[in-house]
């Protein structure tokens, strides 16, 4: 104990500071859920004898939804992006993607504007990759990339974008590109945490490509973590 105090005093005297001191954080839980009307209906049905006899395909006796393979499984949704805009700027990151005979992988990606996409052509045909923005004539593209080779695009467009291949219409990757975005890919019910943030107001973003983007403004202080729990659902996103 005495040693600790001495060390602290010594650090203060020679100007060493803890980098975490004076910083704050944002944390919370992000959850996806089915449409509130479906949740209510399933709960009501679970209280009927017919539903308990398993006549309805997606009603569990405890009032929860039984997700079948053809449903959007909100309980284990894997493509939720949670992020914040860093006013201090971010370094460019390279993201690896690929397209095979079936589709692009991943299906969605949140990036900072200026990030680089490295796209592997895992098909048997030459492909020209492009990034396009809805309602805009602006296009970013690679040269034609032979099979088993990789093309790169620096994403200078902002907003909701689409990565596709000119010669293959089977699928696209949905992109969210925002300047200075720091983001993590989460699963429904996950805890998230962004640490080491300078005090101030931050623009937070929650995005699932099929539900769109939700924004929140949060104030970070050094005293305690800012908590933002967010539920994503059609009825919360479409207003």
């Amino acid at each position, binding site marked *: 104990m005495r040693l600790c105090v001495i060390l602290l005093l010594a650090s203060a005297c020679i100007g060493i500071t803890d980098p975490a001191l004076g910083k704050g954080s944002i944390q919370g839980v992000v959850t996806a859920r*089915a*449409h509130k*009307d*479906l949740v209510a*209906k399933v709960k009501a049905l679970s209280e009927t004898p017919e539903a308990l006899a398993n*006549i*309805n*395909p997606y009603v569990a006796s405890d009032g929860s939804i039984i997700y079948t393979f*053809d*449903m*959007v499984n909100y309980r284990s949704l894997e493509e939720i992006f949670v992020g914040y805009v860093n006013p201090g700027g971010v370094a460019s990151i390279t993201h690896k993607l690929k397209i095979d005979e079936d589709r692009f992988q991943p299906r969605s990606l949140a990036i900072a504007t200026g990030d680089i996409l490295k796209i592997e052509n895992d098909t048997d045909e030459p492909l020209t990759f*492009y990034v*396009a*923005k*809805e*309602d805009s*004539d*602006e*296009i*970013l*593209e*690679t*040269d034609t990339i032979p099979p088993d080779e990789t*093309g*790169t*695009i*620096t994403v*200078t*467009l902002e907003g909701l974008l*689409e990565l*596709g291949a*000119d*010669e293959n*219409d089977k699928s696209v990757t949905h992109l969210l590109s925002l300047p200075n975005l720091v983001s993590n890919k989460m699963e429904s019910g996950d805890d998230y945490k962004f640490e080491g943030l300078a005090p101030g107001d931050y623009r937070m973003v929650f995005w699932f490509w*099929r*539900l*769109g983007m939700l924004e929140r403004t949060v104030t970070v202080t050094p005293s305690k973590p800012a908590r933002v729990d967010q539920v994503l*659902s*059609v*009825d919360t*996103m*479409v*207003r």
Partner: protein
Amino acid sequence: MRRVFASLVLVFSFAGIVYPAALRAADVTGTLSINGKKTLKNLVIYLQGKVKGATQKTRTKVVQKSQVFKPGLSVIVQGGTVVFVNDESQDIDHNVYSLSKTKKFDLGLLSKQTKTPISFEKPGVVKYYCSIHKNMEGTIVVVQSPYYTLLDKPGAFVIKNVPPGIWTAKTIISHKRYKAQPVDITVGPDPVEGVVISVKRKGRKRKKG
């Protein structure tokens, strides 16, 4: 005669007058072509003009059956209505929602045998989904006049019974990589033939190899 007709068209256009029956409608035919070998699907060509009385309220149906929206692409005229019909044989609920700029909506829970209408006042493209089933999605194209055609591939097209007037032929292409230049058309008493609509790839902003 042709000059007199053109003058009448202009006079009526400026005055915003509904055309008299004597000025008959004509068909507009042409070709939509794409540079290169690319094959595009679902091309909507429509005529945009300022002719009064050229719009009409249309109603079309989209059926939800076997967990698919049918048809996957619908074209309606501005002000028209789409009726979503849950025609599942089993007790399966659906939902329809859209985040599009043209119209944002959530129709709630659509149970078996329900018919739910929604109207579209603004022109544009509306991509919609079912929030319950992951492979259910569709598109509604809202056009500004009843003079349109839907092509499943590039090639010849015909738009029937177009009233006399000055029109612009526009094309909506779902593939974001391509666009078509608008084409101005003057419709008179005779059919308009040989309209050429060229679809081109959008120019690149920046290239990285």
